[in-house]
């Protein structure tokens, strides 16, 4: 995106500045949509119910921070998340009005009998890499718990008991409380803080990891997410400064509080709103996040080399590997490629040939890497595929 913006600079209308944020402070909001593949045999109502308290409170470590309260920022102040004031429903299909905590869009781009797509629009577009990592990692973990609820009755019971009395109002309650002390009322009458609710999910995830360790066991990635989740929740509760390089709203608030202290600014001062916007400018020389990155004030999860490689190379442990390699190696003989199929147009063949990819976990390097390496052209690949 940065490279594209730079290329536009010399043209009429340029230069272009890009901001990775979610609000303009005038009432408009634009999303950072997340999509998760979830087993179809989980009833949607149950999925939404078990996930909702998690999504309402996830912003304590996933919020990008925002200057201004209310959709138009009418009231002065700071809140944890950019999107929270725009969430107005529990469950729904819409994405630009009456935005829901759990969205019902369901195009799995895979075998519909086996999977559904869970589409979430509640999250912020994070710049801090740890925030993105935790947001996606913990959500995936919780979904894994829900999928295995029959094997994990204790974890299931913990989550089922967390039903909130007012989930939509709670999204704003949590976001508007940087002290993290506000309590949320549960349907059973209990009052819990956002951190206590997150800790309940964490404990359930830990139990599940231990229970599953008896069998094939959780992978290293799962353990790493659980460990980081635990450390960040602990830091938020006991030593806020210790997570300033990992939690975006804490990093942003640290800078804003510094400006307020040094220059004696009230929360309605335009310099604080400008700092919030400029935080997300993707240009390294202009973006405030990027200034912190250059000063090693925020943690990284991936290296520059890994990012550069990922621009042109798909991950090798999903069907994206097969699709990417086919385009790179035999692109001139591909007439169409989509999420779940590739259509080949091979010279001399009587018709177009379609290769379906309904299973996202097939087409990995482990599965097809050797065949790709052995296939000098698209014909050889198709012959090899029909033999597998």
């Amino acid at each position, binding site marked *: 995106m940065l490279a594209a913006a730079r290329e536009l600079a010399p043209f009429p209308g340029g230069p272009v500045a890009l901001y990775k944020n979610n609000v303009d402070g005038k009432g408009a909001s634009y999303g950072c949509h997340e999509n998760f593949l979830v087993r179809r045999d989980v009833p949607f109502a149950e999925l939404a119910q078990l996930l909702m308290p998690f999504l309402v409170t996830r912003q304590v470590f996933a919020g990008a921070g925002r200057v201004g309260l209310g959709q138009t920022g009418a009231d002065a102040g700071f809140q944890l998340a950019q999107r929270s004031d725009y969430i107005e429903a529990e469950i729904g299909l819409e994405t630009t009005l009456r935005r829901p905590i759990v969205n019902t869009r369901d195009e799995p781009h895979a075998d519909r009998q086996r999977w559904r797509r869970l589409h979430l*629009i509640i999250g912020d577009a994070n710049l801090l890499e740890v925030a993105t990592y935790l947001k996606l990692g913990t959500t995936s973990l919780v979904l894994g718990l829900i999928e295995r609820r029959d094997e994990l009755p204790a974890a299931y019971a913990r989550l089922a008991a967390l039903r909130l009395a007012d989930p939509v109002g709670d999204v704003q309650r949590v976001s508007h409380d940087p002290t993290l002390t506000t309590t949320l009322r549960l349907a059973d009458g209990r009052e819990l803080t956002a951190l206590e609710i997150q800790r309940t999910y964490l404990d359930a995830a830990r139990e599940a990891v231990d229970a599953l360790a008896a069998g094939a066991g959780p992978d290293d990635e799962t353990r790493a997410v659980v460990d980081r989740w635990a450390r960040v929740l602990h830091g938020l509760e006991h030593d806020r*400064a210790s997570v300033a390089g990992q939690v975006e709203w804490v990093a942003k608030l640290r800078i804003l509080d*510094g400006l307020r*202290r040094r220059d004696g600014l009230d929360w309605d001062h*335009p310099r604080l709103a400008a700092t919030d916007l400029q935080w997300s400018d993707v240009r390294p020389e202009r973006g405030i996040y990027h*200034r912190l990155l250059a000063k090693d004030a925020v943690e990284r999860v991936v290296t520059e080399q890994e990012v550069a490689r990922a621009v042109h190379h798909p991950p090798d442990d999903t069907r994206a590997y097969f699709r990417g390699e086919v385009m790179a190696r035999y692109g001139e003989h591909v007439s169409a490629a989509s999420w779940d199929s590739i259509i080949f147009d091979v010279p001399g063949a009587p018709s177009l040939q379609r290769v379906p990819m309904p299973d996202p976990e097939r087409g990995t390097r482990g599965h097809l890497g050797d065949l790709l390496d052995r296939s000098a052209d698209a014909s050889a690949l198709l012959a090899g595929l029909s033999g597998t």
Partner: protein
Amino acid sequence: MADREQQQHVRREDDVPDDDATPTPPPAAPQGQDADVDALLDDIDDVLEANAEQFVRGFVQKGGQ
């Protein structure tokens, strides 16, 4: 360089609070963090938009989900 000097100049002119303005109570800073934050603020001063009010007013989104 000229640009950078201008921005710093504008910041001082605009934003040093008047003596008779009511200052915000300074936020409590974690001990030992002040020096680190101040160093970051110095760096950020060099890149912050010179006219914050105009910049914020001009930031308007059309469309999007």
